[in-house]
């Protein structure tokens, strides 16, 4: 397996969250009908960036404590 444990998989996941969606949004912004629609797309991306960052921290902490448990 390329990503042997949870923390590396988390690392891979955040790339999809941030960059993958970011690139999709970037592509769609270019053909959005209006400025408001484009801003809304960017808002969705920013929201996922923020929540993704928080959630990955939470899960990483949870995992570390789980693994250090005797």
């Amino acid at each position, binding site marked *: 397996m390329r990503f042997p444990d949870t923390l590396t998989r988390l690392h891979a996941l955040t790339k999809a969250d941030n960059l993958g969606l970011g690139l999709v949004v970037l592509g769609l912004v270019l053909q959005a009908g209006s400025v408001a629609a484009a801003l809304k797309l960017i808002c969705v991306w920013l*929201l996922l960036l*923020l*929540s993704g960052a*928080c*959630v990955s*921290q*939470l899960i990483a*902490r949870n995992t570390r404590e789980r693994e250090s448990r005797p």
Partner: protein
Amino acid sequence: MMTFVNLLLAVLLLALAAWTTLARNMFAAVVGFIAYGALLALAWVQLSGIDIALTEAAIGSGLTGLLLLNAASRLHVNANAGGNTGRSRLRVPAALLSAAVSGALMLCVFALPETPPTLAPDVAANLASTEVRNPITAVLLAFRAMDTLLEAIVLLFALIGVWSLSSDPHWGGRPGLRQYSEPNGILAYTARVLPPIGIVVGAYIFWTGADYPGGKFQGATLLAAMWLLVLMAGLADAPPIRRTWLRVALVAGPLAFIAVGFLGLQTAGAFLAYPEGFVKPLIIAIELALLPSLTLVLGLLLLGAPLRGEEP
């Protein structure tokens, strides 16, 4: 290409549904169900049911996900203590019963006439008289307002049912357990940063409901989720259910709805009829009154029965 994406969605839905039912591990089944909810929202979008997609994303995937996760974790605690009993014996009858229900439903679907009876043209013809542009809102609050009123009341009854599960000493106390988190930890940070955004999004979904897909129910779900987030991080505590303000807030929405109904009896000649020219303001007033009540009901339903007394 559209057909390909639709086909893919259908196959994925069936695979996830099968996986959720067949999973041996309860937690994996819950996870499958949450993903299934998200996928179902995609399917509804493809069927042009954007209102339903919003509800599915909010309730089916979000709030129900939380409910099932909590249930699974509590059952997990109990299963470790008491052990599993009688699961394999019930399996075959349960599978047979489910198959029978599915088969009956399938027969019903095939028995439908080629062009099903529909009132959609009538709704489209009379939409202008309601002054709202979202046909779903028009149906829910003008043409079939009685159904929506009864739905709001049924939710209240469900909440009373949940509350009645509490033990006598805890009756009137605070629902759920007091939650703790590190005051400067990432959980507390999340619960401080996300709710303001969530409240704006919830209010937006509510407000846009008059003209575009959205509405009080979806908005209330988002607001309830944000409230629960704050509670889960321990930044606030759930109110004791004997508080008068809480009970007033819970019944205020349905009561306002009923009041508007009687107003219709006076001015337009029928219960829940709206006088000419005031349709949209009245619909928005009802939605506005229902929003806080629904938010509280949904949040409290997920918190469950009171488990502790008045003390924080």
